[in-house]
């Protein structure tokens, strides 16, 4: 019920191409879906996030698409650059829950993105 499944495990894209990473969740109580970016030796950092009241959110080259009925969301990186090479994690939490659930992020398994120049 708490799982977030992410695919693919790894992705290789040419510079200028589109990178697409997909996630699926089970818990319908989740209401906050962030994507985190992690470089080697660093902690994850928030990249972009979406709430379920919208189907898409765009920030620069990064777009989240959200399908509530399918319980799926995806990250699209347009015009991928070598500097985008990192591990990407989708996550989910329930911001409206009190007590033990608040703020707790459940992460996917991660996708290693490599962008070739």
């Amino acid at each position: 019920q708490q799982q977030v499944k992410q695919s693919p495990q790894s992705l290789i894209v040419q510079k200028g191409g589109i990178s697409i990473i997909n996630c699926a969740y089970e818990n319908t109580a989740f209401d906050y879906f962030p994507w985190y970016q992690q470089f080697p030796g660093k902690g994850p950092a928030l990249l972009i996030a979406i709430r379920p009241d919208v189907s898409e959110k765009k920030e620069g080259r990064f777009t989240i698409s959200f399908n509530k009925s399918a319980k799926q969301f995806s990250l699209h990186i347009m015009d991928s650059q070598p500097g985008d090479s990192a591990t990407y994690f989708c996550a989910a939490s329930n911001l409206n829950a009190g007590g033990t659930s608040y703020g707790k992020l459940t992460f996917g398994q991660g996708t290693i993105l490599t962008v070739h120049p």
Partner: protein
Amino acid sequence: EAGVAQSPRYKIIEKRQSVAFWCNPISGHATLYWYQQILGQGPKLLIQFQNNGVVDDSQLPKDRFSAERLKGVDSTLKIQPAKLEDSAVYLCASSFSVGQRTGELFFGEGSRLTVL
């Protein structure tokens, strides 16, 4: 603004030894989390504090792991005795208080533990 500080960055110990990790969250952040990130996997929550109280420790292996946040600021995570499968990066994160509900977690750079 200073980020989440963690130490040590690296630690190598023998199995059955003990180790402690320290975390200082971003100033003013009431909520503090410890996550375990095993190589090739996503971070997994070990324990969540709200000020100095434990909110969720359901996934903390309490027979060997302990954590405290005595004054509601910095926190210590201890493993005693360590097992081989405890080799991982231990990430500390903090976030704003419940009332602000932004959802964003701010992570430190992590403490990498190798158990031999």
